[in-house]
Every structure is written in structure tokens, then in C-alpha cells.
């Protein structure tokens, strides 16, 4: 059970990394337009 003492912070840290990646993705505009990219596949 003691493993939880260090696994939990690691889990939260990993989660935080994904949260930061999500923030970066939003900031770079990946979610601004969800309509066109799916159609774009069909164009090329």
C-alpha cells in the first residue's frame, strides 16, 4: 500500500502533463475550427 504514497503524485503529475498539452493544443488553435479539417481529407 505504501506504493500509493509515491504513485499518486506521479499519476497526478502525468495527468498534469496531459492537461498542459491540452492547454498548448487549445492555444495553438487546434480546436478553433472543428468543421473544416474532417472535410479537408476528402479534398486532397
Amino acid at each position, binding site marked *: 500500500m505504501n506504493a500509493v504514497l509515491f504513485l*499518486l503524485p506521479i499519476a497526478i503529475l502525468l495527468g498534469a502533463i496531459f492537461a498542459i498539452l491540452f492547454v498548448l493544443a487549445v492555444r495553438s488553435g487546434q480546436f*478553433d475550427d472543428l468543421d*473544416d479539417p474532417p472535410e479537408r481529407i476528402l479534398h*486532397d
Partner: protein
Amino acid sequence: MEGAEDVYCCTGCEIAAELIRGAGLERYYAMREDFAPRPGGLEAGWDAVPVDLDGAGIASCRVQVDGLRCASCVWVTEHLLRAEPGVIEATVSYATGRATLRWDPAAVGLRDLAGRIAALGYRPRLLGEEAQFDRDLLLRLGVAAFAAANIMLMYVALYAGWWSTMDTRFVALFQWASLVLATPVALWCAAPFFSGAVSGLRHGVLHMDLPIALGVTVLYTHGVVATLQNQHAYLDSLAMLVTLLLAGRMLESRGRRRAAEAAVSLAASVPTTAKRATASGLEVVPSAQLRTGDLIDIGAGEEVAADGTVRRGTGRVRMALITGEADPVEVGPGGEVVAGSVLIDGAVIVEVEAVGRDTVLQQMAERLRIAADRGTRQSAADRIAPWFTGGTLIVASATFAGWLAAVGMDAALTRAVAVLVVACPCALALSRPLAGAAGLGAAARRGLLFRSADALLDLVDVDLAGLDKTGTVTEGALVIVQGDDRVLRIAAGLERYSSHPIARAIVEEASRRGIPLPRGTEIAEEPGVGISGAVDGKRWSLRAGRPGEVRLIDEQGTEAVLRLGDAVRPDSARIVSALRELGLEVVLLTGDHRDVAERIAAETGIGTVIARIDPVGKADWVHARQREGRHVLFAGDGLNDGPALAAADVGVAMGRGAASSVLVADGVISSGSLAPIPVGIHAARACRRAIRVNQARSIAYNVLAVSAAVAGWVNPLVAAVLMPLSSAMVIWGSSRVEATVRRQLA
């Protein structure tokens, strides 16, 4: 394809096909020369366009591109722009026709890029201010959802630990970890609710944000104190509350952004440049630099850059954008033209009377913008909010005072906090969005798509329906409604090869009646006057008569009349009587002539007719009725209906109508019929009932839960069970909307 003569729908397809065959991009440069440049040296105005420059000196700009017909157009435009030296990014959206450009201003200028687009045969335009996608809200929602999921995992462990012994080290770890995760949720994610509550207080308005902000403050403060004292906190309830409420807000902001975009599209409809007549000849100037009194030259196929009066020349102008009627209008000296209309043929010189913000077009766009900004109206939940907040605070204070006197400080504080926690407005705040979503779904399955639950709910109170004529009550296409076979046969012979809308209607009606088309000879078409020629060895001429009529004149001057009209949708009469049964008064509004409008009204059973009304007039009519206390539904299909659709309590657009009317309306009919409107009213009424039931239930929950908290029976586990239970109750109540609608329609 080889050897065959290829026909392409547009230049984009042709170039794309060339590229696929391996001709390569260099062919573009050869092709470019073949295209006649757009009249008026379109490039000139682009130098004055402000562009954004980033730190590295890279310029960026968004441009509206008109005339994109297919995916190939998008593909070609993008690829050829990217081939341009200095261009870093060029993406074109097929859905909106907007191009995003990033380039090195040292290597290439915006006027070159706009010129490239124009040379391809498309039309680049300047874009007005744009509604930004709300990245901020998405970030807050994402972070809150992430924190909520993790906190709940740890709380499951904590709650499980209540029945078995749990190492205090783990309890402390889980509590501290939850606090760490809950901190950004309370301080950052929930910030919009705090600012909403504060600005509400400043303006003397108490809305739902206030109890939410209060709840978050209490939950978080208690969480910090409890964690420091190694006691159980309500942090899972906090994270869940913020996540659910942010998700609701996200759905709301999407609808508002769509309406704002419609206003931008309108603003972009004015050409960027105009040809100004000066003493020394014509000069091309940006439209923004035109002044009242300037003379501008407009050639065939060009768009009008400003409102004004024709001084010289004649031509036909299509003003569909303003009047919604597709027929071109004849203009000559003294006639008026408006910015955004198109000169189909002829050539005119126009004296400018209004430019920029003063033009009719811009005023329409402004109305849309104001309508889009009206924001969320105060809902029933908002009206309850101050009572809810006040009541909770009073009960909490009383609890604190009572227990302080009876037991002591610790017990009094714990119970007062428990009151504030369980009286959380979650169920109340959700009762509307959830039932609303169910109502939206029920209406959508029956062909009426609504932008927001607010808009759908407004249908409940509607007692007056204003229906646009063309394209809404009628099919929207010109047809022959009266005329005998002999006249029709000769008219069809004359009009056989003409592409004019009236000609097409005549030929179509003749074919429908099975009349063999004679071959007309010596046909002479005089634009704006009519057509003449020989059929069966006699000379005839076809002239426009009174509105809605065409006259066929023979050699002796004898006249016969064909009446033109617009066919009424087959089920319109049934829908009008259905609306009446639901308690609505029905009014027909149209820019068309009174006699035409009255015929349609008689055919559908509509009592009141308002004819010859312009787009702004329609919106004024809506406002006037609203001032009389009426709740107005407006249904229309054209861009010209935009202001009225936006002004009405409920604006419903025909899905096959102009894109902008669809964007600005509250609801859209996806089929070619008005039938979904009465159905939508049924759905709205079921939805309203479900909301009332939900609200009654959540208030009942609050009374019970608060009583339990006052008695001291509530701890974090009880709260964690009670609060989802209240939400489940609301979900169950909402799910019954569909069943109710089905029963009523059966």
C-alpha cells in the same frame, strides 16, 4: 477523359484536373494570363488593409473568398497561394469561404495575394471584425473536467475508507492531492462565475452566477480549512459543480458566436474598391475613402460599393440582399441603388449618398450584431436566484446562531457549512439546460433545429406569427399562375432560349401542360423591356405589364395577359390553421405587391397582410408588436429577413434559404415545409412543463437537504450521495419530454 472535350464546373476544377494530369503548378502562370482581370483593378484597395504583424515580422490576415463552388476550388486556391514566394500559410475554409493567410511582407504583399485569388476567378473581400472562438472557456472546461475526474477517483477511496480502517497517511495524501487539484478549479476555472456575479451586483442584477459563486467560495474555503484540520471536505462536489456548469456555458456561447458570424458575412458583402469618376478620368479607390457626393462608375457584373442615386446610364440591378426578391430591378437616372447589390447589365454612374456605416447594408449588419449581443436573457432560474441566495444565507446564519447557543462553536460552524453546501444550486441550475436539451432533441427529430433552449422556450409564449411570403409560405420560385394555352405557347416560343427567370417559368409551365414549343424566329431581346420575334409567321412582342403580369402583344396591338406568381407550398394552409389552433395570430409580410400578397393570403387562410415592406420595416413591425406586449414568431428564408429574424422573440429560418438568415435565426427548419413550427411549439410546451417539474423537484430537494443539514445529519458522504441524486431526479424529469411530445402528436 482523354480526347473528350472536358467541361468543368469552374476554373478550380479545370486547374485541378490539369494538375492531376501532371501539367504542374507552372501551368497556373500561363492560365493566369488567360483570365480577364476583374474589372476595376481590384488590387488597389488592398494596400490600405490593416494586417497583423507578429514579433518575427510575419503578417497575417483573414480574407473572405467568394465564388468557391467545390472542393477543387479550395484545393487550387490553397495550393497556388502556397506556391507564392513568401507565403507561410494559406488555408481556405470551404464551409465559411474564409482564407487564413500568413506571409512575409518583405517578399510579397497582400495586394499580390488578393490579386492571385482574383486572377483565379474568385473574389477576395475584406472581412469585418470577426467573432473569436472562445478558447478561454474551452481551457477552463478542460482543466475543470480533468481535475474533477481525478478528485472523484480519490474521493471514492476516501468514502470507502469510512467503513474500513484507513491509514491516516493515505487519508491525508488523498485530501491534500484533492486540494491541489481543486485549487485551479476554484480560483481559475470558476472565475467566469465570480466575474458574472460581481458585474451583476454592480448593475443591481442578481442572477444564477451569484449562488454559484457563493457555493464555490464556501466549498473551497471549507475545503482548505478542513484539509488543514485533517477533516473531510466537499471538494468532489466542488469540481463536479464547476465542470457541469462550464459545460452548460460552453454550449451557450457556441450559439452566440454563430449569430455574430452572420453579421460579419454581411459586412463583407461590400466590394473593397470603387471606380471614382474625377475630372481627369476614373481612379480606383478603396470603398472606405468614398465621400458623399462622389460619382462612381459601375459596369456590368460589378457590385455597388455605396448607397446612392443613379445620375447617368441604365441597367438592371439585383438587390436580393436587401429586398429578398430575386428579380433584377430596372434602374435609370434618379433611381436608387444600395451597397452590396449587383449590376447585372448596363452601366451607370452613381452619386454616392451613404458610405460605410451609413449604408442600408451596414445598418442591417449592425442590427444583427446588436441582436447577437443581447446575450442570455434572464431565465426563471435567474429570477429565483436572489431568493435562493438570500434564503440560504438566512437559514445558514440561523443554523449557526442556533447551534452556537445550544452546543458550541465547532458544531455550529460545521452545520452552517453543511447548509451552504447542500443548498448548492446545481440541480436548480441544471434543471433548465437538461430539459432544454431534451426539448431541442424532440424538435430536431421532427425537422426543427434550434440554436438554444432559451430560443425554443420562447416558442411557448408566442402569440403572433409573422410569416415571410417568398420561399416561406410559398416555394420561392416563379411560376405561371394564370394564362391560356394559346398565349403560353407563343410566349414559350419567344422565350425558349432566354435565361431570364420569367422566361424559364413560361417555358416550364408550357412543358408541364404538354404544349409543344414552337420555334420562334427573328428573336430580339431588349434588356429590361422585353422580347419580340416571329412565331407561326406572325410578329409578337412580350412586355412586362402591371406587377406580376406579362403582356403578349400581336401585330394589331391586341394584348393577352399571363399572370406570374409564386406557388404556395401544398401544406401551408394546413399549417396556418394548426398555428391558429395553438392560439397564434398569423400575419403575412412581404416586399412584394399587395394584390399578389392578398391572393396568397386568401389561399392559405391568413387574415392580415402587410405588403411592400423592406427588411428594416419587417424588423420595425416586429419591434412595434413587441411593444404592444405580443410575443412574436417570425419565419423567413432570405438574407433580407435577417433583421426581423433577429428581432423576433423566435426567428425561424428555412434551411434551404440564405445562409445568413439561417445563422441569425433562433431555429432552422430542415425540410421544405412549415410543418415543423407547430410541432416545435408542442415540444417547447412539453419542455417548459419538464423544466417546471425539475425546478419544483430541485426546490423540494433543497428544502429536505437543508432541513437535514440544519439538524446536523449531513456530512461529505451524505452530500456526495444527495447531490448526484438531485441531479438524477432532474435528468429523469427531462427524459420524459420526448414521450410527452410523442403522445401529443399521436
